[in-house]
């Protein structure tokens, strides 16, 4: 009954990598700051804490993909760790630090909760 043409829509929330955690003159690249679309205050941001974050990017060489085959797409996995500030920004930590070229680029915030995270989202 499912039409073959239509696939699933976007299942992730859109976010932007705004920069690293920083003071005025020093920055700490291990933590990234994310601005999630539609997230305007602390309560909104709380929803995303614990969710998985993904940075997707393309490269020249093809590498193997877990589902089989090869692809030019590459991925950095991470998770939203906590809220940052009062306006809905959020901090995230990735498996390896985000490259600076990712600033201003799209980060996907998955609906899945990181399994090894303390807080399981309470419905």
């Amino acid at each position, binding site marked *: *009954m*499912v039409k073959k043409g*239509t*696939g*699933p*829509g*976007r*299942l*992730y*929330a859109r976010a932007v990598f705004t920069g690293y955690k920083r003071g005025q003159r020093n920055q700490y690249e291990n933590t990234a700051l994310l601005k*999630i*679309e*539609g*997230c305007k205050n602390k309560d*909104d941001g709380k*929803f*995303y804490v614990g969710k998985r974050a993904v940075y997707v990017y393309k490269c020249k060489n093809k590498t193997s993909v877990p589902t*089989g085959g090869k692809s030019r797409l590459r991925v950095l996995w991470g998770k939203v760790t906590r809220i940052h500030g009062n306006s809905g920004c959020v901090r995230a930590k990735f498996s390896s630090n985000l490259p600076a070229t990712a600033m201003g680029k799209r980060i996907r915030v*998955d*609906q*899945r*909760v990181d*399994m*090894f*995270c*303390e*807080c*399981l*989202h*309470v*419905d």
Partner: protein
Amino acid sequence: MTMVETKKPAATKKAEKAPAKPKAEKPKAEKPKADAKAAKPKVAKAEAKDVKAKPVKPKTKLELLRERKPKGTKPKDKTKPKPVKEKKPKQKEPLGKKPLKAGCYRIWKGKKEIIRRKNYIVKPIGGANNGNARRVLQNKRPAYYAAQLNKKYISKRKPKTNFKRLRPSITPGTVCIIVAGVHKGKKVVFLKRLVSGLCLVTGPFKINACPLRRVNQIYLIATATKLDISKVEIPKHINDRYFRRGKTVRSKKEEGDIFGQKTEKYVASEQRKKDQEALDAQLITAIKEREDKKMFFGYLGSYFGLRNRMYPHIMKF
């Protein structure tokens, strides 16, 4: 022997002279009691006179103890019957005659017989000068003796969340959205939670090609839509074992490259197909009972996707 003799006369004496006033010739055991008795009337007299009462000597602990159980002077109450202990008949096996299993031997600790098992097997070996046989241990000694015993290894990668907790929004019959995986975006019906903690879920297959499947609850977004599956019977054989992946048996005499990818395409077993059809039929009858069945069919058949201005943190699923 002498002790026995003295006991008897003491007992008889006491029987005779208990009511009468005590005399000094009595054995020592009786003295404190005698003293007590002597003291009592004195105290009574003193109290009666009320003037110049002689102070009563406080009894020492020893005296008190003696009072309670004067040795050898306790009269045997012959009126009470002795409690008779029932002797349980011991099943005495004839010693040394119990048939031994292979590899067992018996040893004696006094009269007690202990049967032990030999830890080794005698295996014949070849070679002229090798002594024909070797003892091969069955339970081999450990290759490593830890310096610290009982060291608790804490698994570092342990899920910290309360494992048994299922999100309260996920109840049997809830329509859930699968968030990732092969079936991402599909709306499926949650059937029940399996022992392993995974959620049993089905499309139904006829509607959206999602089969009976195990899914972790973190892959599910529960919607408010609930289907009444109280009349749906989920067969008991559908459990974690049912979904266990089969081990791919690699024959040792396989020709060609061992590392050559030979991933066989998954084909659903007949059992799975049967169970799927049976369960689907039940679910579809449950859907047909609803008023909004047409929409419901369409709902389950469609994919979920976020659009512009749709924010998960605001949305009520």
